[in-house]
């Protein structure tokens, strides 16, 4: 198991807590919580070791495109980068829901 934490400056507030996905084979769980601080904090726990660089570039690119002030937790069970991106988008959609 490996842990990573990334933080980025952010400005846009989100509406509500969001949760998607399952910590199951090839999948992951994403939790997004609104934050009053002007930053995004992403905490990742993954069962697959040795993909730190892949995570970093994926998360950086995603939050460069999506400016949200939030606490993001990712619990990963071997999702591919494509699946990670889809889950993050899905979570944002839920979080933006009124």
């Amino acid at each position, binding site marked *: *198991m490996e842990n990573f934490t990334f933080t980025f400056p952010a400005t846009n507030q989100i509406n509500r807590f969001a949760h998607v996905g*399952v*910590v*199951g084979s090839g999948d992951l769980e994403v*939790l997004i919580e609104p934050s009053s601080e002007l930053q995004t904090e992403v905490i990742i726990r993954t069962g697959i070791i040795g993909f730190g660089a892949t995570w970093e570039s994926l998360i950086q690119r995603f939050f460069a495109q999506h400016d949200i002030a939030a606490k993001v937790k990712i619990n990963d069970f071997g999702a591919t980068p494509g699946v990670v991106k889809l889950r993050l988008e899905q979570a944002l959609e839920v979080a933006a829901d009124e």
Partner: protein
Amino acid sequence: MSRTVLKTSFVELSGRERAHSILDTHSYKELLGPQDNMESPHLEPQGIVPQSDDGVIVAKGTINEHPAVVISIEGNFQGGGIGEVSGAKIAGTLELALKECESGIKTIPVLVFDTGGVRLQEANYGVLSIAEIGAAIVALRRHVPVIAVIPGKIGTFGGMSITAGLCSKIIMTRGARLGLNGPEVIEQEAGIREFDSKDKQLIWGTIGGEQRTVTGFADVLIADDADAIKEEIFSMMTDDAVYSSRTLQGDRYDALLNLVEPEERLSADEVRLLWAQSENAAIEEKTTSLNRDNSAGRGQTWFDLLRGEFLEIGDIPSVRVADGMIGEKKVRFIAVVPDNQNRFPRARKGEVGLLEAWSIAKHVREAIKADQNSEKRAIVAIVDVPSQAYGYHEELLGIHQACAAAVDAYASARLEGHPVISFIPGNAISGAFLSHGMQANRLIALRDEGVNVHVMSKQSAARITQRTMEELEIAAKKVPAMAYDVESFEKLGALFSLVDGVEANSPEKKDRNIIYKEIDRAIDDVLTDHTRDLSSRLNSAYAKSGGRAASILVREKLKEQWN
């Protein structure tokens, strides 16, 4: 022009979506959901990524306006395995539903199973939880029907198949499976000739939804359609028909077992015929050899020592029963022992098999009935059980249901006010311990190297969790619930006492007197206690000081969120 209405697959839904699909849309209120972040504290130290809800979704609400609570297990997280948090979520919810029922609000519990049973990474926490879940279901059934849905993909296995067997009604799809020992475990323990875990036809023919429904182990076979499943649940909730729980139908299952000749391998179709026949079959007693198996074990030794001069009243050699006395107190002793002539070869070494579990249930029920209007005798389970019986016939003929009957009998005795005490001089292992011992008000064990409490042999546990034996040993050092020795088990707080200075293998009169005293003390403790549930295990010093920290916290949080 008619339009085809698309059906929603229930099987393909996630655990949470399943709960949503059962409850009325606007009534859904999740308890201890992802936002509460109540994850298992035991996984991360073992290098396993936890999940925010620990794989169990609890949602309160209504089903067609009837109050209900849905407990749905997410099979994709750790195979739906029951750990300390997920187990406490299930048990705690059922305990709250029970309180609500006692106060007059008939909240009906619906369990959606998708689980391999105990989560092996949390081992004994799973067993303790499953005992508590079973205890709550037996108590709840006195007020409301408890409804089980087994949709697949996994089905329900291990201790959780016993849990399903305790439910009032079971709904299955064709793809679902219901069995005590999973195919891989039987293959590991009994060999590939006994069960080939790669043979899918064999698996579904033995424990699949259709077979289970036709042979009396499930009530309704349903299409994989979310709406149909909700309607079926609703009709079971509102059905006023008086029905008898499977666990009380020992005569019918006895009749079935009597029709079987285990020397020949039975086919799935033959069992269907036999089940139909068993409805009208008069039970003719099989002539069981009365030659006692001389391979003494601790169970035999202690049973003989504790019963003293009192007569035996058991009716099969592998389940010994006697009514004795401890001081002024009436006591029924029950022990499961080896019988090398056992009709079922997989149960010859002292395992709890089909005959054993049904026989335990019968003798406990007998005592309940006999004492209905008089002093409730104590029931003492003498526990030295290597495992449940692993075998093809065992699964085919519903060993999970037999175990459920034993669990139900002990739990019912406890609820009726019989002090139920377990005395553990030997091994207390997995399904066997759940069926014979775990429902006791109080547990007494000997501090001895030969006393082990665990879930599965190390070989099988390694195979199922895909770890090496060395990795398992290391993990056991971090999580006491994974260890096999009784001193680690003691730290979980479930024991009433761990007795020192007793000769476990060849006990004498002085050892007997020590144990008599302990049992007597345990009975008194039960009689002065006003609860008849298993709560003493969570109130012990060990439990409170950390042994069951998560189990206690989960229950507190559930209570806060319940209303």
